[in-house]
């Protein structure tokens, strides 16, 4: 049995739900009971790094760049940060036009017209144009040669840090875009340990964020940095805090949905745009005072409670004008108020579609929470049985495994709904919804069997498990891998 088999049914493979427990190892041992062989792993290839190990990664990157082009190490860092650590891109740009490339990368300054003012004031010895004082023994400057006193540099760096800028601190001269290398900043902050720590922390954040293979663990207060070359939005689990998340975007693992789609979906669920849609679909504005009215009864003769205006819900006309010919508005007329109605209809359609998917997404999320309780109950039941000498705990492992598998399948099922919501109509959607329906059916049958595990024969339960996992694998295979 190979590693992929194990990861597929191991206890820690249920997407962040539940704690690890001592049954896990047994799970792995017994995994071949469910003979589903996935062709791909849902786990990304990754390693967990400490801050020191990450620094090593940066140094290696810098060294390999320095060996290819004639450049100082401190500038190599700036170049790599600005170019997502793509050494080939840097070498190509550098070889094509060195001067232009160094200017564009904020390492060398653009040629600038001499200012009349700075020409006169720089005659003064040791003059800093920011604090407007002279007599400074040293005036540090970047490669651009704009001199300022140490006090002002510190003030500038502190001000940038308070805005969260670290890797891209610019020269203080106006329109000069040269960035300060870290060794320049660290030298100035030597006497200010608190600020130095802050700078180093922000710089690490900037460097990690610019590196395509690195990602901070999303766990609370976890300092681990994940390194992975995985191109697909697969799952990683931090070895330190055991948080599971998507290796690409850092959100909860969301197969088969893509990172962009899940981001769109989550924003849609979080913001109140749907509230607006609801209002638009279910209410109309009083034609006289424009207050918002929700129709609660069947009668189309509406009286606005605020301005007491009587009007017709269908045509917005004054109710009096309906006169002898009631329901004149049932006849189709090309008029602007009917056109306005079309928008209501459209909004209502959109709302219905969204609610359809959202309700199912939410419902599975709730079921997952409730099945956590089921897991505890089964754990207790196994303990009781073992204590009563009714079989050993190894004998009852299949019960525990069945809940784990149920959680895993339901989790994937939950995330098929955002995928389906954004999938355009067509044969691909038909196939997806067919497979989704199959998985839905198997998951519910499995859930039924698990909840009644005591009266279900082990063989029947395992058959359910096998079928559910099989459907899940087929769906992931066709739409995720």
């Amino acid at each position, binding site marked *: 049995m190979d590693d992929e088999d194990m990861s597929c049914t191991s206890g820690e493979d249920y997407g962040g739900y539940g704690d690890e427990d001592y049954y896990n190892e047994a799970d792995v041992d017994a995994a071949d009971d469910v003979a589903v062989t996935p062709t791909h792993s849902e786990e990304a290839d990754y390693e967990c790094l400490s801050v020191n190990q990450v620094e090593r990664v940066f140094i290696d990157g810098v060294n390999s760049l320095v060996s290819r082009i004639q450049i100082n190490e401190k500038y190599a860092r700036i170049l790599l940060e600005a170019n997502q650590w793509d050494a080939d891109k840097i070498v190509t740009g550098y070889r094509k036009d060195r001067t232009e490339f160094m200017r564009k990368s904020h390492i060398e300054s653009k040629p600038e017209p001499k200012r009349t003012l700075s020409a006169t004031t720089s005659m003064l010895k040791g003059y800093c*144009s*920011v*604090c*407007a*004082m002279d007599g400074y023994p040293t005036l540090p400057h970047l490669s651009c040669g*704009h001199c*300022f006193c140490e*006090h*002002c540099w510190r*003030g*500038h760096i*502190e*001000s*940038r840090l*308070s805005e969260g800028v670290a890797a891209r601190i*610019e*020269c*203080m*001269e*106006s*329109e*000069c875009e040269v960035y300060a290398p870290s060794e320049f900043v660290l030298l100035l902050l030597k006497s200010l340990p608190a600020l130095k720590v802050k700078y180093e922390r922000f710089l690490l954040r900037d460097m990690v964020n610019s590196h395509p293979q690195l990602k901070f663990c999303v766990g609370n207060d976890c300092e681990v940095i994940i390194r992975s070359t995985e191109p697909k939005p697969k799952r990683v689990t931090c070895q330190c805090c055991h948080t599971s998340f998507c290796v690409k975007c850092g959100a909860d693992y969301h197969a088969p949905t893509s990172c962009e789609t899940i981001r769109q979906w989550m924003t849609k669920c979080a913001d109140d745009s749907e509230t607006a849609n609801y209002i638009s679909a279910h209410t109309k504005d009083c034609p006289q005072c424009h207050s918002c009215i929700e129709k609660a009864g069947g009668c189309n003769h509406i009286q606005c409670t605020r301005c007491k205006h009587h009007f017709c819900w269908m045509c917005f006309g004054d109710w009096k004008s309906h006169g002898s010919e009631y329901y004149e508005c049932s006849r189709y007329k090309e008029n602007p108020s009917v056109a306005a109605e079309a928008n209501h209809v459209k909004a209502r359609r959109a709302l219905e579609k969204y609610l359809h998917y959202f309700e199912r997404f939410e419902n599975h999320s709730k079921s997952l929470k409730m099945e956590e309780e089921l897991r505890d109950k089964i754990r207790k039941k196994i303990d009781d049985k073992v204590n009563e000498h009714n079989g050993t705990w190894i004998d009852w492992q299949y019960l525990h495994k069945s809940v784990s598998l149920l959680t895993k399948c339901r989790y994937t099922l939950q995330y098929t709904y955002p995928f389906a919501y954004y999938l355009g109509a067509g044969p691909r959607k038909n196939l997806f919804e067919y497979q989704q329906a199959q998985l839905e059916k198997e998951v519910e049958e499995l859930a039924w069997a698990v909840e009644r595990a005591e009266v279900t024969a082990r063989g029947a339960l395992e058959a359910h498990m096998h079928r559910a996992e099989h459907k899940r694998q087929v769906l992931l295979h066709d739409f995720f891998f």
Partner: protein
Amino acid sequence: MSNIALNRLQRECKEVVTNSEVSETGIMIEILNENLTEIKGHIRGPPDTPYAGGMFDLDIKIPEAYPFSPPNASLEAVKFTTKIWHPNVSSQTGVICLDILKDQWAASLTLRTVLLSIQALMCSPEPKDPQDAVVAKQYMDKPQVFKDTAAFWTLKFANGTVPVNAEYQNRVDKLKDMGVREEEAISVLSCNNWDLNRATVYIFS
């Protein structure tokens, strides 16, 4: 306020006052309180513009982290107190949209450069990046109306010298006869491209 900022500001005030350019460019600084946190700026309207001859006043509030953050770090810290009709200045509040007051600020810039930049903005407005959308639209669609309106505002609010469109004064007087304050009359007429009917409807509905 830090020592750096105090030194800087004292020096800057001296720079603006003594610089020989002052008489040529027409920018001035006036200190309002001892600790230099509130400063008044004056800009003479540049010649050959609708603002010619006018004298425009500005409020400048100096933030704690000056000069490392721009005088505009908190919203509305640099603004016109004289009413002005300009695409990059709010006709209601006087707030200015200028890059060096925001992200393009550099510690080596001074109040002098800020005032000079604002003066340059008066010569060449940037309607693509407007602060006041109504003014910007008029600037793009009806350049002549914009020029006349800006000159009218300069005369009324900034003691300008450019002769104004007599018909505009006529319409302002008509609204005044209906009991509208002059400032409101000018503002509403300007926003409605001097259409007296629309301005009347706007005020009285």
